[in-house]
């Protein structure tokens, strides 16, 4: 299991999927699309200095990533939401999120690959 994805949550999702690869494609595909849009909206808010809008996008990213087990990224979102991030500027927070989100999205795509072959 990729370290960016929580094995316990992934196991629960596997149990829920019950061998249905389409469920995972739907779930991870939805997360992937949504994460891209939310991150773009966080970027736009950061560029415009709109902190409330920025935090709202971070909150949405946090919830969504927890549901697919992307806990490392979710923890960064939580730190930002709670004002515990090691940076204070919105641009800095955005930078903090960018790579872990990218890694999580790649990890989920990796997890889908064998399922697509099997399905």
């Amino acid at each position, binding site marked *: 299991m990729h370290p960016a994805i929580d094995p316990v949550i992934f196991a*629960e*999702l596997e149990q*829920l999927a019950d061998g249905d690869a389409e469920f995972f494609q739907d779930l991870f595909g*939805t997360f992937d699309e949504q994460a891209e849009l939310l991150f773009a909206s966080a970027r736009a808010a950061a560029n415009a200095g709109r902190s409330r809008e920025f935090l709202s996008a971070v*909150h949405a990213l*946090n*919830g969504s990533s927890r*549901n*697919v087990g992307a806990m490392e990224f979710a923890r960064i979102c939580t730190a930002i939401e709670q004002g515990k991030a090691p940076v204070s500027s919105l641009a800095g927070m955005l930078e903090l999120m960018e790579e872990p989100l990218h890694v999580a999205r790649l990890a989920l795509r990796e997890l889908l690959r064998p399922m697509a072959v099997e399905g």
Partner: protein
Amino acid sequence: MAGEISDFVFACAWCGTDNDSLTAEWCSCVSSNPSLDCKACGRCFCKADRAWRERFLTSPAAAVHRRRSMKLSRSFAPAADAPAVDDLPRPIILVVDDDKVVHVIAKRVLAEFNGTLLHAADGEAGLRLAQQLRPDLVITDAFLPKLDGRELSQRLKTAPETQHCKVAVMTALYKGLRYRAEAIRQFHVDAYVEKPLTADVLRKLAADLLTHNEAPAAAGAAS
């Protein structure tokens, strides 16, 4: 789920093309009871006799109402006439969350209840859908665009036509006993659960609240 309003597909009896009720447009006929235009051939069936109108849809009566309800909730237009709620398979469960991932998981988990699953992405849309289709259970996020999930609960519980709905509020923000007590006392929620929700918790939550809805439980049964 026996029916799901968010992705209802119907076939045009004229040309056979599948139409998605979410993207098809209302016909422009001046009528309190309009039908949808087929995307492919552009024809509607408003002026046809009943037999022809029914041929427009693969599964007529209930499908018309489902399609209309969803369309109205999407456009936030006021309901021109009440949909036939009785045609929808029960239990009707409404999930309100702006996180699409939650809807994908809920669809999977709640399928076993063999009813109708409704989806809304914000509190206002959820309220309209609930007012129209009077779900047995509403599962809503607390932190929502347009109308807060707790406020949605309060509105549903204080309106005679929706006060029977069981309401569960999910939250990742308002955690702790103080918020829980406030949600129960002030916003009349039946269950208050912390996010993220596992499939087991969601399944149990729905089963418990739907059971309570069949035989109303004593006040204060919030979990």
